[in-house]
């Protein structure tokens, strides 16, 4: 990937193969298709898997299979694992920074985005054992019941990641979903997919159970309909919607009444874009009426 520096000029560059991430493994797309990612000068950076609906289907099977176990993991453990992801990312910041630059980011902006990503992971890791207290409640009722509401993960969340923020935007959407016990299938930014694939390698090395996060690359126009219509998806987060996709996604999502979360015009680099309501977005409120003596 990186061009050889002066010292190793004679050495052949070893280019990285960017693959997708399904169920803890790195397959190529089953469709054998790819698209070519180019830098601003038109030079080829890498060939990127153009995932098909079957890849998405396979990823959904992996995500569904992992969901129960992940939701049952203790909040503390989920937080620890997320924190571990941040640690691993910290150790590989140069790789991510280099990839961002390859995709057109300015040097300082790239470093800043990697820093912000690590901080954001730590931020959501911290919420793992706290959001439940903040959002749960004991409710006053006019009968002899102890009535309380707690959050439960909604299940499998499909994410169409922001186009313009290849790393931070992706992580800002994945982290709050998985910290709450959901699993997810995310479609990376079409024009900035490098960091998404490398992030999958970080997840792989950081004790995140296989299937909890699945990352695909490919054409959004081809896959968004599948993301919205798949009956096993419990919620869909789509970033950068326009009026046309809004309608298409919402109509397709109505079949099994998915939660539809539209995140448009969010400045992911801004700290105001991190808040626990992102965790609550993919939670279901379960209210229990427990009979008590008078």
């Amino acid at each position, binding site marked *: 990937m990186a061009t050889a520096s002066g010292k190793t000029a004679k050495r052949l560059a070893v280019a990285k193969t960017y693959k997708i991430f399904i169920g803890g493994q790195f397959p190529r797309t089953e469709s054998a298709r790819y698209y070519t990612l180019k830098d601003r000068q038109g030079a080829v950076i890498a060939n990127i898997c153009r995932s098909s609906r079957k890849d998405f289907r396979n990823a959904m099977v992996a995500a569904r299979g992992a969901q129960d176990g992940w939701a049952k993991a203790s909040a503390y453990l989920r937080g620890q694992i997320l924190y571990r992801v941040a640690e691993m990312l910290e150790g590989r910041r140069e790789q991510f920074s280099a990839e961002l630059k390859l995709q057109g980011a300015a040097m300082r902006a790239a470093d800043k985005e990697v820093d912000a990503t690590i901080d954001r992971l730590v931020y959501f890791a911290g919420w793992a054992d706290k959001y439940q207290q903040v959002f749960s409640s004991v409710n006053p009722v006019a009968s002899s019941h102890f009535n309380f509401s707690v959050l439960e993960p909604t299940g499998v969340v499909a994410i169409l990641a922001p186009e313009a923020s290849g790393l931070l935007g992706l992580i800002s959407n994945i982290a709050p979903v998985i910290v709450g016990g959901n699993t997810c299938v995310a479609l990376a930014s079409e024009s900035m997919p490098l960091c998404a694939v490398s992030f999958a390698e970080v997840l792989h090395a950081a004790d995140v159970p296989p299937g909890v996060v699945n990352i695909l690359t490919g054409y959004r126009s081809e896959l968004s309909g599948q993301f919205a219509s798949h009956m*096993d998806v419990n919620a869909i987060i789509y970033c950068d919607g326009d009026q046309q996709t809004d309608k298409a996604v919402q109509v397709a999502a109505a079949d099994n009444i998915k939660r539809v979360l539209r995140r448009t015009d969010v400045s992911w680099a801004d700290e105001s874009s991190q808040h626990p309501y992102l965790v609550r977005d993919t939670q279901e409120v379960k209210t229990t009426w427990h009979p008590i003596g008078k």
Partner: protein
Amino acid sequence: MSLSAVTSTHKLPDMSRVPTVDEVGVNERVARFQTRSIKSASKVEALKLILSMIDLTTLEGQDTPGKVRQLCQKALHLHDAMPGLPHVAAVCVYPTMVKVAKKALGNSGINIASVATAFPSGQAPLSVKLDDTRMAVAEGANEIDMVISRGEFLAGNYGMVFDEIVAIKDACGDAHLKVILETGELGTLDRVRQASELAMHAGADFIKTSTGKIQPAATMQVTLVMLQAIRDYYAATGRMVGMKPAGGIAHSKLAIHYLVMLRETLGKAWMTPQWFRFGASSLANDVLMQIRKQATGVYQSADYFSKD
């Protein structure tokens, strides 16, 4: 009952002359079956055929009459939201549950298969196995799934295994006899071929791969070897024998590969529930989800299909 009297109509083949199996060839052939392109219209037909070939199975120590009734209910109402689906071929239960299944299924046309002969190990005296079989038949089982004595087979007592199958077949009366080879315990494909020949010559109506209690259960490799044995037996004797792979077939895609293999090994005549079965518990729902996917174009969720 005198065993020799029965054996006179069946003859144990010379086991030393049973053809050996080319394992590399089998693997290559099996890989080839998985590359066939199946068009959507054929896929829908194949899926429906698979449904009609399923022996919906529950064989657990924890089976209760309620669990069996629930399974029968599933067999009767696979997915009422989609009219025009075929029903499964049979419900497969333990002998003690045959009565419950019989009552639940009534005259729906769904057969009742019962495992017998000290399933799954087969480690019991012949008298016990015969009583087990007769009891299941008397309670209303139309099909008996017996296990062979793998211990005796592996020890080389082919005659004993042979006589046992003959005796059980006799005890079955009108009920169809499926002989489970438990290929996972036989070790080699050569022994699978030998056991297949032995079972067919002893009068088996069906040969079946596995109990589902031993890993590996059904694989495409052993199924191919057994299908080839059936083909050769048919060529030699003119008698058709059915095939039932059981255990480990949980997905439609794999089941379709099995159908391709069946079609290309034995031909069209075997492509009916009368001659081919899938022993499975979770396959039915996957097939239903695929049929629904073909009809709607949308990938399905297990949440919308009844559990079995």
